[in-house]
């Protein structure tokens, strides 16, 4: 098997200011599937085509932002090895017992030098996508509910110490650097895009003075046409749109950035090139960051740099 170690982004837990308003947004407008609620009041969602029980969890709080972001790893042996590797590297880790999140096994939790809480886990119940495993149809009616992305794709996080975060992901967790934006003096990375497989990114970080900030969680859309449809649905529902529809230079992905009702940015994302671990990193100079962000307009939208939750 070629893909081992960390497999993919598995879950994000995000804080919302009004739970009922957020549920209506994520279920009816973004078109996620609600899969459960727990005793803490958290609401669990998955994208329609995801097979695991949950990928996006919200809880009510008096502040917006990200609680933690989790990756699925291959198996329990991998989880234990990565836990030991993180500790050997000098990070402290914590075990969250199985069942603390619905349908989810034991998690290894650690905090990055950027202030973000990361998790690894090996088990989450397979609830399926509503399509049989034998002679499957290509899609189900769930595809037509709201924007209806097919999976949680990645997240972009803002915080300090991006160089140290880069080392942890590449030296301990087996990621590789797909693209980067240099700082204005060209001596360091202002932003990094990291992959653990053949996706153009599974997580990204940008240097920012405040720790632990969420720039966006991204949801995968199946086509450019469906990105435009997502934009239509956003406008029909008075969703606050930030940037797009347009295409990133970085990743080549097609995108709309918008905000949930609590000010957590999300992305509807399609495409991107398909890197391999042996490919050379693609580099953007800071003076071309505008092209990297919005290739047709060559515009470094100020909100991209300054608005986070």
């Amino acid at each position, binding site marked *: 098997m070629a893909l081992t170690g960390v497999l993919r982004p598995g879950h994000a837990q995000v804080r919302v200011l*009004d739970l009922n308003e957020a549920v209506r947004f994520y279920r009816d407008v973004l078109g996620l599937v609600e899969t459960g609620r727990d005793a803490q009041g958290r609401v669990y969602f998955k994208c329609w085509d995801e097979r695991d029980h949950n990928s996006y969890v919200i809880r009510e709080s008096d*502040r917006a932002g990200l609680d933690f972001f989790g990756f699925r790893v291959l198996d329990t042996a991998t989880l234990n090895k990565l836990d030991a590797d993180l500790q050997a590297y000098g990070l402290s880790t914590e075990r969250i017992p199985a069942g603390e999140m619905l349908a989810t096994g034991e998690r290894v939790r650690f905090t990055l030098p950027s202030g973000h809480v990361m998790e690894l886990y090996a088990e989450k119940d397979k609830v399926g996508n509503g399509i049989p495993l034998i002679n499957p149809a290509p899609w189900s009616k769930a595809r037509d509910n709201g924007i209806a992305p097919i999976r949680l794709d990645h997240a972009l996080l803002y915080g300090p110490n991006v160089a140290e975060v880069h080392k942890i992901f590449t030296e301990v967790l087996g990621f590789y650097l797909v693209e980067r934006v240099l700082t204005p003096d060209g001596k360091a990375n202002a932003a990094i895009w990291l992959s653990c497989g053949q996706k153009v990114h599974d997580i990204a970080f940008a240097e920012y003075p405040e720790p632990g900030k969420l720039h966006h969680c991204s949801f995968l859309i199946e086509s450019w046409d469906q990105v435009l449809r997502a934009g239509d649905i956003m406008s029909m529902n008075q969703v*606050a749109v930030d940037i797009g529809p347009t295409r990133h230079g970085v990743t080549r992905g097609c995108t709309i950035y918008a905000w949930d009702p*609590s000010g957590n940015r999300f992305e509807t994302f399609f495409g991107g090139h398909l890197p391999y671990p042996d490919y050379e990193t693609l580099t953007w100079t800071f003076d071309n960051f505008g092209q990297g962000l919005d290739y047709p307009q060559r515009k*470094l939208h100020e909100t991209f*740099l*300054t608005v986070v939750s």
Partner: protein
Amino acid sequence: MQHTVSIEDTGERYACSSDESLLGAMARLGRRGIPVGCRGGGCGVCKVEVLAGEFQTRAMSRDHVSDDDRAHGRLLACRVYPASDLSLKVIGKLHKNVCGSAASP
């Protein structure tokens, strides 16, 4: 019910109904006085200080609005709904951009 909002920093005035946020009405009318961010009370860039007037609010993030802020009318414009004519000044982290000094990334 329509009210008039005055942005003291820029002298701009615009109409805002009681069921529309201070930020939403400004943006809809194409004015530019207050910085526009997430429009959901989460990011804090549209922070204003209400100098005079009555209003109602919806939930906004404590990362940006403390109890002391609330007591002094320092709020996020995207979550404030006017109940009378109202005047405000911009105090958010993008204040520099509103008031004309250089905005560089």
